């Protein structure tokens, strides 16, 4: 009985990972777009990027998540209704949770990527342009490969916060491991001694494994990308 609950929490961890990795992809894409917007020469784009990164980082994740999940549901239906589509459409909570976390952490990635891009000497991009490369080519062959090294520490930080933020999708009713651990704790009360503490602690240990593995993996990656860099020694 107890083993069954442990197994279901373990299965729920797969959903947490899926949300985290999916959100990471969204966040990186939005982060690159946001950084490009904030560094662009078009004033409206700069404003858009600034508003995005400032407002999102100033509001708690949970409030944004509730706003986008509950608000998005109603907003979508009102929109569809005005277009003459009368059926009630329900947003998939998995997609909503994933997109929301991605949207929020895109704002944090924007700042990380912007800092990394600004730290690369402009002369390098100028040299690329002087050789006749296009803007896109300069970005992908000159700026991006060097930016990885500079962005990695901030990226690592954002990723660790993002993994932990996936626990919030349980509040939207998505059966991730936090949700399942809470359910198991309530269901097994009286059968398993101290069930709520036991199952929640189990979920905590799984999160700890995730963060530890990520830290080790990203440290290896950092070693790779800093291979040719000379560090000052005092």
């Amino acid at each position, binding site marked *: 009985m107890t083993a069954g609950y442990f197994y279901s929490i373990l299965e729920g961890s797969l959903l947490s990972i899926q949300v985290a990795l999916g959100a990471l992809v969204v966040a990186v894409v939005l982060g690159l777009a946001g950084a490009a917007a904030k560094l662009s020469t078009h004033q409206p784009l700069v404003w858009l990027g600034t508003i995005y990164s400032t407002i999102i980082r*100033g509001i708690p994740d949970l*409030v944004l998540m509730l706003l986008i999940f509950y608000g998005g549901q109603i907003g979508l239906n009102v929109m569809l209704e005005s277009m003459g589509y009368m059926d009630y459409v329900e947003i998939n909570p998995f997609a909503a949770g994933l997109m929301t976390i991605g949207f929020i952490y895109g704002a944090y990635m924007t700042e990380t990527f912007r800092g990394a891009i600004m730290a690369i000497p402009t002369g390098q991009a100028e040299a690329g342009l002087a050789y006749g490369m296009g803007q896109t080519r300069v970005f992908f062959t000159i700026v991006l490969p060097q930016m990885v090294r500079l962005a990695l520490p901030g990226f690592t930080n954002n990723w660790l916060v993002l993994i932990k933020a996936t626990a919030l999708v349980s509040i939207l009713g998505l059966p991730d491991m936090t949700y399942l651990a809470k359910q198991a704790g309530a269901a097994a009360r009286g059968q398993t001694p101290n069930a709520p503490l036991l199952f929640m602690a189990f979920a905590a240990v799984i999160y700890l494994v995730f963060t530890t593995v990520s830290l080790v993996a990203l440290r290896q990656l950092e070693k790779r990308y800093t291979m040719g860099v000379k560090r000052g020694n005092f």
Partner: protein
Amino acid sequence: MQFDVIFTPDSLRLFGAGLVGTLQILIACLLIGGALALPMTLMRVSQHWWVKGPVWLFTYVVRGTPLLIQVYIIYYGVAQLDWIQSRWDDSWPWTGFKDPFMCAVLAFSMNTCAYTVEMLAGGIRDTNAGEIEAAHAMGLSKWQTLVRIVLPSAMRRTLPAYSNEVIMMLHSTSLASTVPAVFDITGAARSIYSDFYLPFEAFITAGLIYLVLTFTLVGLFRLAENHWLAYLKPRGR
């Protein structure tokens, strides 16, 4: 959009109560977390593994797990243990577990404590070796060096990072609304949402209040940095 629902006396009172709740939780956990963080930081920078080991483990576990799970562990886990419940009527400090507000504050305090310890320990490790040598050369004892030389400069160096932590903590207090019977800004928004089924109005209002609080904190910390980190500013003409 029907923002007039927000501007009724009842809704405004709800958000007012939520604001008070959020600020109470924030201030309580910053005070408790900060008070715990100072001695734990000194343990963290100790040379003996058996002194720094337990604190390292504590910060590692707290920083590696979601705050929501920590809140649940304390409120649904520890506070439901028979051992605790047999004591929470009369014997202090276990009486605190009876109160959901105290459970939330305990979880948040532990969380901010762990992050503060690591930041402050980093600040202490960055102390210029020459400053400590000079203090020893002047005949200051280990304790005097710590209190007069190391801590003042380490705490100043930690100030910018600490301002981020305080803002993160403000945002984290929104998780208090997941504990029944604790009321904060997010809780106010959730109850207005469920009463009127108006998610945009309720959560946008809550978001705006948090934004104002965030900018206020940013401004306060800028003042604090101008005061305590004034010597690091480039000198103007």
